[in-house]
């Protein structure tokens, strides 16, 4: 079995080096002219994990990836790959693989030539090349196409060839620079699952870059959310989704509704006081935030609607439905709440004709206090521009 043999070949090297991180960045900065693309970034990527750098365009995530690859030279700071500080190493001397958004398949070579290229660069024998290429192509489930020209392949096949070319020499580290960005939705999801499958089978460290929060949540062991060249939050997919640390993270991952106010201690209870004077309960509040401006982040699926007039909603917030869209498994609503001068975005389960509201319906909003997560809106955690 091909994956098994890859495992056994990777085994010893993993065992010896497991002690240290796969990639370590220490105070890495990059400046392009006047633009500070990456600002003093510290990041440690563990061996065997799939870490996603998530952020909007211009957040510096691609620059980080390119600095790891050696395609961009950091202005300051140091980078380790495995135990080695790679500042002095050119790209081709680093044991890495990268899949580009453009895929960058060599148009003047056939599929075999493309996949064999890194092996030829390593002066591996002809027979061994043939064996490894066919193995790599079977890992990405593309046997028997090695004589085809790359421009004769479908988009999905090209993706797989690019991945096979990156995996064929068993690099320490696989870097994915938004390779799924240009695909249509179905193919994209298929390829994302393919990456998860390969990651589980090959036990390789993968750093993925994307602006697609869905992809990040789906693929990653951990997510590093970036904005404006800085690391906003680093954590497991679930932690980042459930407990965003900043307003930016809350808004970027899952349509969060942010209710702003000042955090007040009310006896033993901590509550958020809005500008309209309403006092809202929060899930948990660190003491040091009391007295500061904060916001409650409510995911779009954490809020329930109830028809008015019915027994008053838990927090007593009422609004009017402004927009309703049927999305198959769910219904998407926008509800204006006059009191907070806010438009809430909601996603409600639609199974069995539930949660069917008309535009103009007065509704009450209700949520579980444990979902009312507190985020800081203090300086330094500004909204995305």
């Amino acid at each position, binding site marked *: 079995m091909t994956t098994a043999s890859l495992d056994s070949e990777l085994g010893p090297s993993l065992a010896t080096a497991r002690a240290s991180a796969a990639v370590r960045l220490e105070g890495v900065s990059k400046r392009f002219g006047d633009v500070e693309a990456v600002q003093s970034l510290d990041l440690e990527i563990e061996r065997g994990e799939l870490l996603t750098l998530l952020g909007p365009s211009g957040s510096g995530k691609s620059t980080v990836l390119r600095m790891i690859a050696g*395609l961009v030279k950091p202005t300051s700071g140091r980078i380790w790959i495995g135990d080695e500080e790679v500042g002095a190493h050119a790209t081709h001397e680093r044991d890495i693989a990268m899949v580009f958004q453009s895929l960058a398949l*060599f148009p*003047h070579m056939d599929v075999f030539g493309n996949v064999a290229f890194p092996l030829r*660069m390593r002066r591996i024998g002809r027979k061994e090349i043939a064996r490894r290429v066919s193995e790599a192509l079977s890992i990405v489930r593309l046997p028997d196409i090695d004589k085809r020209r790359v421009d004769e392949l479908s988009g999905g096949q090209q993706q797989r060839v690019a991945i096979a*070319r990156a995996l064929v020499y068993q690099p320490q580290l696989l870097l994915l620079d938004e390779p799924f960005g240009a695909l249509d939705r179905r193919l994209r999801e298929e390829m994302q699952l393919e990456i998860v499958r390969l990651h589980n089978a090959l036990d390789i460290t993968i750093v993925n870059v994307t602006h697609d929060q869905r992809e990040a949540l789906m693929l990653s062991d951990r997510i590093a959310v970036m904005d404006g060249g800085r690391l906003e939050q680093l954590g497991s997919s679930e932690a980042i989704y459930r407990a965003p640390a900043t307003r930016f993270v809350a808004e970027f991952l899952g349509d969060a509704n942010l209710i702003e106010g000042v955090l007040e201690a009310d006896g033993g209870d901590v509550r958020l006081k809005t500008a309209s004077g309403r006092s809202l309960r929060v899930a948990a509040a660190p003491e040091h935030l009391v007295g500061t401006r904060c916001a409650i982040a409510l995911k779009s699926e954490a809020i329930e609607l109830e028809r008015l007039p019915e027994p008053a909603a838990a927090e007593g917030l009422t609004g009017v439905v402004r927009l309703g869209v049927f999305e198959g498994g769910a219904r998407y609503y926008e509800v204006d709440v006059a009191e907070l001068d806010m438009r809430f975005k909601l996603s409600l389960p639609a199974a069995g004709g539930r949660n069917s509201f008309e535009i103009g319906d007065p509704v009450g909003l209700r949520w579980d206090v444990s979902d009312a997560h507190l985020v800081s809106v203090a300086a330094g955690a500004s909204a995305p521009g």
Partner: protein
Amino acid sequence: MSVSVDTKPRARDLAFGWRIVDVLIAVRSKFAPVLHGPWVPYAMLIPALALVGLLVYGLGNLAWQSFHSFDAFRAQEGAASLDQYRRIYTGSLSNHIFDTIGRTVGLSLAAVITNVTLAVPLAYFIVRMRSNAWRLVTLVLLLVPFLIGDVVRAFGWYILLGRHGALTWFLGQFGVEDVRVLGTLWAIWLGMIQVGLPIAVLVLLPAMRRIDPDLERAAATLGASRWKTWTRIVIPLARPGLASAAVIVWVLSMTEFAMPQVLGLGRLPFVANELDTMFFFQSNSYVGSALAMTLLVIVFAGLLLLTRFGFGRARR
């Protein structure tokens, strides 16, 4: 916008130029239906056809003359014969003619090789240059001599390489005296680089631009050194451009006239210089035609070889 009540402005209110425009517009609208007929695209071909026709006529004329005998004394065309070819290939002229052809072909091949070799890195750096300002400067430096006439350029080199020129002075600083470059093949070769290089670069630029820089980055991540990236990725992908550049330099070099005339001091004629002598000095266009036809055949043979090399294997 001015609002005038008088709907019919007097003629002298309008500048004369505008009245011409009015007339043109009137004429055009009158003939509009005719101008949009189905024959219009064909009519637009006429100038091009006339030009090509003239060329074909000229070439036909050359071929005709080359295959007829000619009485130079009476300036009278004779019967169809191979006299002219016999004269240049077997007569007393033949040694000189073969020397000339050999020199032309040899130096043209040298020019193709040197120009393309120099043009590849030059075009690459112009395309990959980060600064737009520097790119512009480089292109201007490349193009200015290209836009200056052939003869002027030749005389520029003549001055540089001449007895009191910069080269003599420079070599004199190192105690090297009495180096003569003018009137040698080296001088002509130098001149042909000057002629061919800008064109080779210009032809290569679009081919280089088409190469996605991601391909080079990908090659680097896959373990290819700079040199390997260059030989395995950049050069093979630029090959159609290389072939075009080689073809153009070949044709230009084979028909070079000014450089051998000026920098070769006329001692080392190319075929074009020989044709000049035959047509205008000896006023014998018949024997000239035979040489011209020979040149044409050699140029086309070279074209065929170069295109086969350049485009043949690339489409695999």
